[in-house]
């Protein structure tokens, strides 16, 4: 087992130093369905963590909570020492307003399973629009940066193309460039290769591997590709029914999982 679980006391100052992401007794319910049950987990700055587990185990919900696409039912989430969707008023925590959300969101970026490129903009514009509009970066500067990123994802020649003219793999690489253009500290990857044709998967994975190795980006990755999970992560969390059943470094989880549930899951995935 790892030593990630921190002993008892937690003054704010310390948590600010140590954790990029911190879930504290997070509960998420959709109607009657409880997706996350009092979930606690922490991620260090620069750490690369993969979430695995059966569908419906709450992995994607964790990413969506971090991206503020959903709100917690109870409990708190902190990103880089700040409450994500709460603000402190006196002694109480109250739901945060849009302004606060936008502040905290600056640190987080996300790549989606379905790419979600904007069809009303060409590739370059997809990448520059948010920095220009949401961050106020001058357009020429944003474009220069976008072209660098397109270079990185090896699509420099596609800047003027329309997203629909690109293959799935290319679209996903643009989506990655688009997320990186916002210079997030945390990047969330939500089954980013699941919607791709098999022969396009490796291109995207290689790119992400490079990105993971270069930067000091904190990565949180939901995937069903175990080899990719193994390559990319420092730590793997196995989820089932809204809780972490096992965690450890990839080597340990994939070669000698301790829990029966993990073994069953890995067996099922590898057989598929």
């Amino acid at each position, binding site marked *: 087992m790892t030593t990630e679980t921190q002993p008892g006391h937690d003054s704010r100052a310390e948590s600010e130093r140590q954790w990029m992401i911190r879930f504290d007794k997070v509960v998420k319910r959709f109607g009657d369905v409880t997706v996350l049950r009092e979930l606690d987990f922490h991620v260090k700055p620069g750490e690369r963590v993969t979430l695995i587990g059966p569908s419906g185990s709450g992995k994607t919900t964790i990413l969506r909570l971090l*991206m*503020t*696409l959903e709100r917690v039912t109870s409990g708190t989430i902190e990103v880089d020492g700040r409450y994500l969707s709460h603000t402190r008023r006196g002694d109480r925590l109250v739901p945060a307003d*849009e302004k606060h959300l*936008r502040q905290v*969101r*600056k640190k*987080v*970026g*996300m790549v*989606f399973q*379905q790419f*979600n*490129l*904007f*069809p*009303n903009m060409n590739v370059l514009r997809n990448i520059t*629009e*948010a920095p220009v*509009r*949401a*961050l106020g970066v001058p357009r020429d500067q944003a474009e220069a940066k976008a072209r660098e990123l397109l270079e990185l994802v090896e699509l420099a020649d596609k800047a003027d193309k*329309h*997203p*629909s*003219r690109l293959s799935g793999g290319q679209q996903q690489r643009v989506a990655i460039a*688009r*997320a990186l253009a*916002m210079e997030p500290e945390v990047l969330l990857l939500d089954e980013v290769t699941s919607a791709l044709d098999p022969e396009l998967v490796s291109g995207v994975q290689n790119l992400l591997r490079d990105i993971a190795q270069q930067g000091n980006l904190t990565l949180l990755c939901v995937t069903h590709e175990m080899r990719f999970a193994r390559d990319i992560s420092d730590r793997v969390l196995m989820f089932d029914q809204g809780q972490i059943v096992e965690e450890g470094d990839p080597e340990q989880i994939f070669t000698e999982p301790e829990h029966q549930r993990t073994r069953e899951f890995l067996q099922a995935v590898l057989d598929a």
Partner: protein
Amino acid sequence: MTTINPCGAELPGTLGEAMPFLCRGAVVTLQSTLGGSVIAIAIALVVGLMATSRLRSVRGVARAYMEFFRGTSVLVQLFWLFYAMPILTGYQLDKVGAGILALGLNLGAYGSEVVRGAVQAVPPGQREAAVALNFTPYQRMRYVILPQAFVAMVPPMNNLLIELLKTTSLLSVITVTDLAYQGRLLVNSGSDQLVVFALMLVIYFLFSYLITLLMRYVEGRAARVVGRERPRRRRSAPAVEGAR
């Protein structure tokens, strides 16, 4: 108004007799259509977006507006605006003004539904991506959602505008001197019914076709913005199909 007539009083027979009047009526019809359209589109956008709000109260207001103005007839709304409002408020709109307002309010209610539907039909992933990229709620709507929803709005809006054009004929009941009014006047004063009614038919049709052409152009532009070709339309000219 006796000497110069762009619509040719010198035309032979019933044509020469009717066209000057029909033309004047047509101009009024066109003005009412334009005015009504501007108001209807403005209302459709505002109320339609209100109907997609996350705030229940805002949605409620939009809902109430739509149901009320769709559920009561244009004619009755017209009577209220023109006859009843002056009694209640002491403010008398002129005939054309009241007509335009009634048309705008009524068709705007239908248009709101079009806007709401089109906005909600944009895949949720688009909004989520816009949130993830930290756009403000206004920016999400303005730069991501609306441009995509717009394409879907145009064809049903085309229907509504044609509907609006034809509904202008109701304005004749409050004695707005539109095409329908002039036509009936001509017939009542002894012009050949068949010719007059045929001319009215042609003029209404030309106007509605004009709207369709305009909206197709707009749709084509909008479709290109989201990277889709405009759906191909069959040509009536001798079909010269490309190889395929």
